[in-house]
């Protein structure tokens, strides 16, 4: 994130939602369909404002999340770089459509600015939709590529990446953030804009059968063998994605005896906690998955051999911790600290968790003590 003097001029202080919108436009996105929901309204509002000036761009506020995800399907079918965004309850409503889009192998970018839940919940930052995003909240075997930015600049970079990956793999990509990332302003430098007309042609789109046989984009496979074939083809694609796309940040991990794993907003707080703990002389590092699916299991497994314990910190009651345990598979102890429901933990709090973990003798099992405010630290593996 070091900038040359030249780039300084381009540095803009923008809120995360606007960064995402601007980056999408620069990635050649010319179609947005969505439905309002806090805390992500600044994104559609940005798209509305920008697209109002761009005659060929489509901004449409749909009548619902359901309608919007299906409009995304249509726009993708017709070849557009297209995006929708929502927050937790609205993303739940999109699950059927997401399953279709994934099964039909259509590129699309879906933004989820998570909020406290379940149900209506609240609009504070939370991470309770991890399972939904990474395991597939819709029906059937499919996967989204899930990117988890933690910084304004990363929002810009990952948004570009999201559109590229979606097209490359013909797969929906989810950008998973929360209201804090969406509202927060940080200085950002944008990549140069892409002219959508210069993007590689997509030979599978439906644009009328002029000069070629008519095409079908379908989702029904009554013949179970063809459906199975599709499923295994998707698996092979997902394996390729896993090999190529996995990404993570490691911070002070080299000499760490203890690692804290966190993503997105939680990772920023955890980083603050790590800095404080380091100041106290504790050899702790941060492992921050930047891709939640595919999950950076291998680098994490390697770390597991090096450290005594991994603390997973999530703004939920514990979801990603399962992927950590799957990666670690007993190689070291895994404990969990969670603040669900929209509570934003402080770096001080995390440093306390780190130091208490570090200083305790290593008993086989620690009862799930509930810290004040209902947070909890449990040893889960």
């Amino acid at each position, binding site marked *: 994130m070091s900038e040359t003097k030249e780039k300084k001029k381009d540095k803009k*202080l923008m809120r995360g939602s606007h960064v995402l919108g601007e980056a999408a436009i620069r990635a050649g996105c010319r179609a947005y369909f969505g439905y309002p929901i806090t*805390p992500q309204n600044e994104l559609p509002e940005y798209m509305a404002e920008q697209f109002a000036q761009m005659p060929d761009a489509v901004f449409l506020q749909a009548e619902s999340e359901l309608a919007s995800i299906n409009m995304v399907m249509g726009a993708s079918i017709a070849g557009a770089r297209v995006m929708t965004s929502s927050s937790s309850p609205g993303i739940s409503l999109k699950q059927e459509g997401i399953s279709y889009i994934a099964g039909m192998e259509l590129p699309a970018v879906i933004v989820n600015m998570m909020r406290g839940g379940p149900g209506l919940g*609240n609009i504070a930052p939370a991470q309770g939709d991890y399972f939904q995003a990474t395991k597939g909240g819709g029906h059937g075997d499919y996967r989204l590529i899930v990117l988890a930015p933690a910084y304004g600049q990363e929002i810009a970079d990952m948004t570009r990446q999201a559109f590229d990956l979606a097209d490359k793999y013909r797969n929906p990509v989810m950008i998973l953030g929360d209201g804090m990332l969406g509202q*927060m*302003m940080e200085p950002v430098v944008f990549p140069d804009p892409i002219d959508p007309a210069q993007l590689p042609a997509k030979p599978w789109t439906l644009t009328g059968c002029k000069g070629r046989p008519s095409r079908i984009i379908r989702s029904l496979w009554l013949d179970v063998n063809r459906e199975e074939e599709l499923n295994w083809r998707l698996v092979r694609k997902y394996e390729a994605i896993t090999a190529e796309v996995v990404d993570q940040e490691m911070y002070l991990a080299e000499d760490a005896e203890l690692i804290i794993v966190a993503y997105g907003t939680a990772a920023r707080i955890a980083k603050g906690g*790590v*800095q404080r703990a380091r100041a106290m002389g504790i050899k702790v590092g941060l492992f921050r998955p930047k891709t939640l699916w595919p999950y950076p299991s291998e680098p994490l497994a390697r770390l597991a051999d090096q450290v005594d314990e991994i603390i997973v910190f999530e703004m939920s009651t514990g979801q990603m911790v399962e992927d950590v345990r799957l990666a670690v598979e007993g190689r070291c102890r895994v404990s969990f600290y969670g603040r669900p429901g929209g509570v934003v933990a402080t770096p*001080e709090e995390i440093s306390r968790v780190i130091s208490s973990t570090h200083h305790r003798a290593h008993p086989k099992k620690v009862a799930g003590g509930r810290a004040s405010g209902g947070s909890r630290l449990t040893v889960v593996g």
Partner: protein
Amino acid sequence: MLLKSVFSGFGGQGVLMMGYALAVAGMEEDKHVTYLPAYGAEVRGGTANCTVVVSDEEIASPIASSPEFVVAMNYPSMAKYQNMVKSGGIMFLNSDLITETLPRDDVKVVLVPANTLAHEMGNDRVLNMIMLGAMVRVTGIVSEESLSQAIETVLEGKKRSLVEINQKALAKGAEYIAAHN
């Protein structure tokens, strides 16, 4: 150096602009900055506040659990943050709306009659910039030139006169400090 400031007040008192202007000034000085508004609950009413972090290094957390500086434009804001300010920190109070005294002695208090000063300037709405000018004069988080410069960015596209009155308000706040502290 990593400094966290919280700005808080009624909706309409311009607290978000205070934070934004400070963040822009920080950015223009090539510092690392984050600006985090407490985005309104999904329901109406309530107060507004925002947090600005200005630092020489990458900023991990944009949350200010114990800010160095708090600007409170009304009493509820003071009440909310009086226990959170870092020991040794400073609380800036709009003395026109706050008559209560701070129940801590490890925190410095700076009183600014922002409403009165704004009224003197003939523009009731610039009370926020007066307060900000005072705050930056005391804390030196950014230079006053950067801050004045930042107003141009913040009010980009707005009328020149508006930019000027806001810049004057910054100066007025700073002068008030010079005169009274």
